[in-house]
């Protein structure tokens, strides 16, 4: 019997309409755990690196994690993997919600698509019964709307549906995959889904997930719940409100946006508005948010409430989480949050990434102001800030006129537009738009995360370690006192010694070696979460989370029966980290690509940054270009990767 996983994948060949249930190799679970790890293995094995993201051969994988659907709280993530049309690298985007657990109850750890359907279709999985169904009637329908239509036409109110909107159908590079209150937004995987002709996947399952050692497992789960209760009652003091608790930043709960609106940049990540948050704005924004917010909601089997049901008068209901309420508002330079909630409804139905899309639009208008794009490009566009954002959003998802060019994201759009447009692309890493955050002093830890993160998205890399030093020694001592999550006591000392000013402050402290240590720990927890399917909001993202390096090995052992300890888990992390790196290296990624936006910090330190990157690569067992060495790969049972990289001449001199 297989424990904690179903032991089967669903393989769908869309070109031939073939559906197969394929048993998986348990040895792969031991090596890569599941989720991101086994997704990476499939991507490495199945297609050569030249494969175009829109090639029929390119796989699109919907995966659960090893703990997904068990009673482990928050084990609900769906890890979606394909080649990103935007970065051209491995795209892994994740969503919470209810999809992955339901897929496991239906009997599958993953759904792997290949080929392309000649017509728009949707997949309906009801336990053993799997059908490819016509979706012609869903063409052009909203991503949220589609979920409801499918549930109704199947008469399956308990089915969970992941769907794309018009943006995905039209292969917009920022197209998302939406499901319930969640979405896999980053890196354009919705465009890959649309390219394959899949409008949606609906799933319903009523099978068991088995647990190897139930007595141990329930005890661990109860401990996690108890600790969540403790953390909810005891927010971490002396840091900004949205980072004090568990979960993703509590943007649906909090209405005080002084910090975001005054510290993040508006427009095309340009303008700081340091006196924005007035009394009137505060009152207006609070009443807007409380009026449209009907209920705080969560993902599957999680006591947090990171999302909300949003009902704006006159618009259909949708769900929201995290930061989207601000991204459109700030990108469009609109002072009323009501606009944010309204345009987000349209954006959710279109199915677009709320991080990149507003920046692409702001970029477009900046080019117009600079005279690089002309009035002819914007014929019919309203002149007010709100109206023109709606107008351009409509053009982008329909790929009409200038929208067709901008639909490829700022990097590719600038290349097409030319005339110096590339100078206006100032907030990307690896061709992908980043949070609109511009800071003063370089933080060495963040420098490394921005530079080397394979996810190209800081919120999926950072976490665990404070973002800034505490002001006083008393605050630092109070913080480290009950910080048992640290994998090593040295991290406590780093926090104790880290000062806001002077010798022990940014950029020279944490030191180069310390910064590497810290980043490795942060990455490690994210990579483990993504293999297990546990939400970062209960693990790698917040300070002092319920899941950590000390209890994870026990979770894995008791759930799956695989022998696991902290050393073993670190090895799995290193294996998965190196495999993901190798996939990207094989697709051409090099040191030169590991470059945070030039203006991310005002004060830059090229020599220090070089030292940081050198030390990080060395720590990882990579060469000066960020390529894993043969020895590193062989130690991690990735000899086949080393061999391939050697044959291609990427690893030189053995």
């Amino acid at each position, binding site marked *: 019997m297989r424990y904690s996983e179903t032991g089967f994948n669903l393989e769908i060949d869309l070109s031939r309409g073939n559906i197969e249930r394929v048993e998986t190799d348990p040895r792969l679970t031991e090596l890569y755990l599941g989720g991101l790890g086994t997704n990476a293995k499939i991507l490495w094995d199945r297609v050569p690196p030249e494969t175009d993201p829109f090639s029929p051969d390119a796989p699109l994988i919907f995966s659960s994690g090893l703990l997904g659907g068990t*009673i482990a709280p928050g084990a609900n993530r769906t890890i979606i993997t394909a080649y990103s049309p935007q970065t051209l690298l491995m795209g892994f985007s994740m969503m919470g919600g209810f999809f992955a657990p339901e897929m496991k109850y239906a009997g599958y750890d993953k759904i792997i698509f290949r080929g392309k359907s000649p017509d728009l279709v949707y997949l309906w999985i009801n336990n053993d019964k799997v059908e490819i169904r016509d979706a012609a009637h869903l063409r052009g329908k909203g991503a949220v709307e589609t979920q409801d239509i499918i549930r109704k036409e199947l008469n399956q109110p308990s089915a969970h549906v992941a769907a794309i909107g018009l943006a995905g159908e039209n292969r917009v590079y920022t197209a998302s995959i939406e499901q319930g209150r969640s979405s896999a937004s980053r890196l354009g995987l919705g465009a890959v889904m649309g390219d394959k002709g899949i409008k949606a996947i609906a799933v319903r399952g009523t099978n068991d997930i088995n*647990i190897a050692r139930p007595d141990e497992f329930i005890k661990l789960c109860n401990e996690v719940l108890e600790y969540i209760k403790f953390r909810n009652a005891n927010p971490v003091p002396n840091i900004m409100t949205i980072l004090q608790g568990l979960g993703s930043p509590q943007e649906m709960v909090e209405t005080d946006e002084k910090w975001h609106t005054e510290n993040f940049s508006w427009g095309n990540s340009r303008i700081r508005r340091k006196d924005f948050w007035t009394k009137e704005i505060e009152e207006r924004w609070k009443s807007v948010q409380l009026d449209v917010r009907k209920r705080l909601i969560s993902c599957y089997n999680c006591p947090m409430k990171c999302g909300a049901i949003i009902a704006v008068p006159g618009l259909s209901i949708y769900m929201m989480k995290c930061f989207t309420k601000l991204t459109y508002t700030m990108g469009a330079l609109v002072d009323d949050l009501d606009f944010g909630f309204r345009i987000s409804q349209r954006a959710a139905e279109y199915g677009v990434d709320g991080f990149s899309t507003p920046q692409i639009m702001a970029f477009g208008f900046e080019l117009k102001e600079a005279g690089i794009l002309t009035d002819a490009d914007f014929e019919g566009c309203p002149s007010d800030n709100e109206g023109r954002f709606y107008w351009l959003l409509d053009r982008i998802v329909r790929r009409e006129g200038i929208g067709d060019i901008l639909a490829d994201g700022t990097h590719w759009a600038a290349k097409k537009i030319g005339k110096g447009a590339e100078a206006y692309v100032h907030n990307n890493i690896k061709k992908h738009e980043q949070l609109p955050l511009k800071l003063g002093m370089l933080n060495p830890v963040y420098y490394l995360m921005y530079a080397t993160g394979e996810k190209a998205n800081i919120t999926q890399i950072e976490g665990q370690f404070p973002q800034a030093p505490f002001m006083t020694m008393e605050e630092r001592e109070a913080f480290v006192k009950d910080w048992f999550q640290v994998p090593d006591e040295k991290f406590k000392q780093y926090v104790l010694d880290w000062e806001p000013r002077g010798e022990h402050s940014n950029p020279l402290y944490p030191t180069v070696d310390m910064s590497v240590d810290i980043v490795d720990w942060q990455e490690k927890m994210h990579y483990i979460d993504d293999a297990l399917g546990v939400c970062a909001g209960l693990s790698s993202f917040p300070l002092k989370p319920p899941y950590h390096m000390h209890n994870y090995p026990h979770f894995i052992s008791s759930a799956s029966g695989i022998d696991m300890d902290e050393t073993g888990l670190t090895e799995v992390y290193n294996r998965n980290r190196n495999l993901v790196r190798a996939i990207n290296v094989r697709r051409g990624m090099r040191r030169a690509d590991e470059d945070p936006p030039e203006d991310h910090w005002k004060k830059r330190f090229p020599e220090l940054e070089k030292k940081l990157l050198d030390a990080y690569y060395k720590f990882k067992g990579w060469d000066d270009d960020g390529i894993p060495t043969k020895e590193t790969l062989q130690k991690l049972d990735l000899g086949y990767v080393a061999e391939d990289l050697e044959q291609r001449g990427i690893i030189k001199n053995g």
Partner: protein
Amino acid sequence: MAKVKKKIKSIKIDLDKCNGCRACEVICSAFHASPKYSGANPGRARIRMIRDPLRDVYVPVYAGEYTPAECMGRDKYVIDGKEYDECGFCRASCPSRDAFKDPDSGLPLKCDMCEDDPPQEKPLCVQWCLNDALIYEEREEEVEEEESPEALEVGVKALTDKFGLDQIMDAVARMSMSKKG
């Protein structure tokens, strides 16, 4: 008649506090797995979230009695302008729907308040609902001790009501004669 004490177990369900996470379902299924906690499968849960996020409908419903036949009609509640599902508050394991039936055997499921040895302090769904949408309450009530009549007596009384005592006595006499005969 003598008074006796009866323990009433109830779960107060506060729909406004529900975050829709379905932890109640999954922990219920794990507790009732055999061996305990050896599996997870909300399809076997004895509590079911009737949910429709786009209408803001979140109703945890507990499995009650099995019924072999549907009701003659159905009800639909509208509360504060919000329309709930047809039979949306009903606890029955009923032919009209798939809730509260074991997905493999089709046998009816019924909430047992997590009877356990040693007893659980609260049913598991309540323990796992950190948002206090489910609150367990226990109280004792004094009730009249009823003498439950014997099954035979119930049967004879029903026949007597239908045929009259005389006819029944005649029938009994005839039957006893023929047996002796």
